[in-house]
């Protein structure tokens, strides 16, 4: 057995809140089967109190993908969307008694899917407006891209050398070599976090790490 906690295995074996809510108030599909993890979250939200009255998920993914989605649905059911938005991927991982570093990105995916669904609902209700993508927002998103080796953010690990947002193009310089073991994984994760932003046409990623001579 992998180094999964008992709680991860418990949720993997008996996932809570599985399925799809008919006539959901909001839904989000994050990730893609090509990347190996994909999550669909559907929500029922009380319009007056903003309380999440029901939440269900479906997952194409590994054990930690299923377990993080399952625990997250438990954590936010009955909470207001404002409270739910504050839940971080670290809290979800802690609630599962930890995740292996290489699997932390699954917790990020689950939290992102929830946030997307809430954001969509707020947009629908006119509670949020479309703001242009700022460097601050890009940095916030990049903090959720993890180095699978350590499970810590690429920003904290100083793998992000530089980035720039201009004319709908985000350019990112990573302090990694193109043949780094996790280069293609990190690249996919960055695209997953940024490609869908409404005013972004292109995300360019450069690997500028020093090549060994």
């Amino acid at each position: 057995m992998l180094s999964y906690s008992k709680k991860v295995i418990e949720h993997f074996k008996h996932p809570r809140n599985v399925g799809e809510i008919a006539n959901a108030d909001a839904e989000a599909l994050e990730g893609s089967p090509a990347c190996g993890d994909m999550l669909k979250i559907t929500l029922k939200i009380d319009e007056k109190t903003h309380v999440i009255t029901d939440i269900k998920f479906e997952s194409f993914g590994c054990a930690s993908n299923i377990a993080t989605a399952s625990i997250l649905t438990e954590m936010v059911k009955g909470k207001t969307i404002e409270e739910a938005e504050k839940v971080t991927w670290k809290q979800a991982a802690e609630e599962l008694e930890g995740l292996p570093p290489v699997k932390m990105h699954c917790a990020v995916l689950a939290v992102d899917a929830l946030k997307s669904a809430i954001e969509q609902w707020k947009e629908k209700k006119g509670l949020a407006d479309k703001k242009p993508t700022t460097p601050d927002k890009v940095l916030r998103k990049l903090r959720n891209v993890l180095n699978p080796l350590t499970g810590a953010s690429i920003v904290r690990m100083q793998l992000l050398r530089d980035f720039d947002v201009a004319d709908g193009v985000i350019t990112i310089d990573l302090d990694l070599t193109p043949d780094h073991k996790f280069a293609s994984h990190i690249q996919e994760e960055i695209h997953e976090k940024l490609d869908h932003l409404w005013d972004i046409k292109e995300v360019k990623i450069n690997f500028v790490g020093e090549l060994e001579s």
Partner: protein
Amino acid sequence: MNEIYLDNATTTQLDPWVAEEMRPWLLEKYAAPTGHFGHQASLEAKEKLEQARAAIAESINAQPEEIVFTSGGTEANNLAIQGYLKSLKKPVHVVTTAIEQESVLNTLRALQKDGVELTEVGVDQDGFIKLEEFNAALRPETVLCSVQLVNQEVGTIQPLAQIGRICAEKSIPLHTDAVHGWGMVGLDVKKMNLSLAALTAHKIHGPKGIGALYKRKDVKLSPIMYGGYNEFELRPGTENLPGAAGMAKAIGMMKPEHIEHIDKLRRMMWGAIGSQIPWVHLNGSVDRGAPHILNVTFDYIEGESILLRLDMQGIAVATGSACFSKALEASYVLLAMGRPHEQAHGSMRFSFSRFNTDEEIAKTLDALKEIVSDLRKLSPLTPRKEA
């Protein structure tokens, strides 16, 4: 330990008879097989080592002096490729396939940094080398070809006799990584015109930590490690005599009836999966594949989840899913076969041995049907009408 072990392409159970064969050389006759002028114990050890060498040579239609013992398949591949290229003093070009095991691919890719030019020939959708592409890749400066005997993930048997003929016509030495085929499918170094071939013991119920490189007499190699003058001055270090004895015993114990049994289990498994579980794809070929490897994709679900659920029921298998890989990347073998990423993520490898039984296959099938159906209920991709 798992009750049902279907991960025999990763490694196999040591046969108790092989362990018996090794025992005296571990416990009582522990002298090193130093050479021809040692003490009695060492001479006896030397004789045993040479017997093992001869038995292994015979199994591939080679001469005893063409067998160099190594620590396993990885070292044998490294010695073959690095040792051969090192012996040449000119710019070189090497041709291999895109689906070789890492100890071939990563060795060659590392050598690219030293100026070795490399062509990785593609495979078709069933995992067989594209012979036209292979032919076209050969150049006047091509000094080595490396094509595996059996693929480690999907079990395809490459047409080595044909490839050997092409190489012989152009006088290009052919190396084969035979780690996944030795003992399971035919391997004849003369019929296949092989110059080099890597073997290992632990895939056929021998011990881990012992392998061998076949090196045709006229092929020149340089050592890649330095030390004493063991193994024809190609591989220093005290010889692993218990390992060598076990390896010879293991190959001697591979009988045609075992292969038949293993092949029957594989066909039984695929027959049942194909007819009883919807949305599955075979990766590889049943009729042109090795008897012990079956690779199947289960659409709409991910391999690590299947693996863990089977493990909870005591069944050990392998998967090509990225979630299970150390680099979080889907199986490069399946991608080279043109499978989309999602099919690679949902791929499972079942690999069999003579110790597996019909009942184990039936139990695995029952578990698999339930698990696949459960996970599909959870997946946003499953077509809902028939699920």
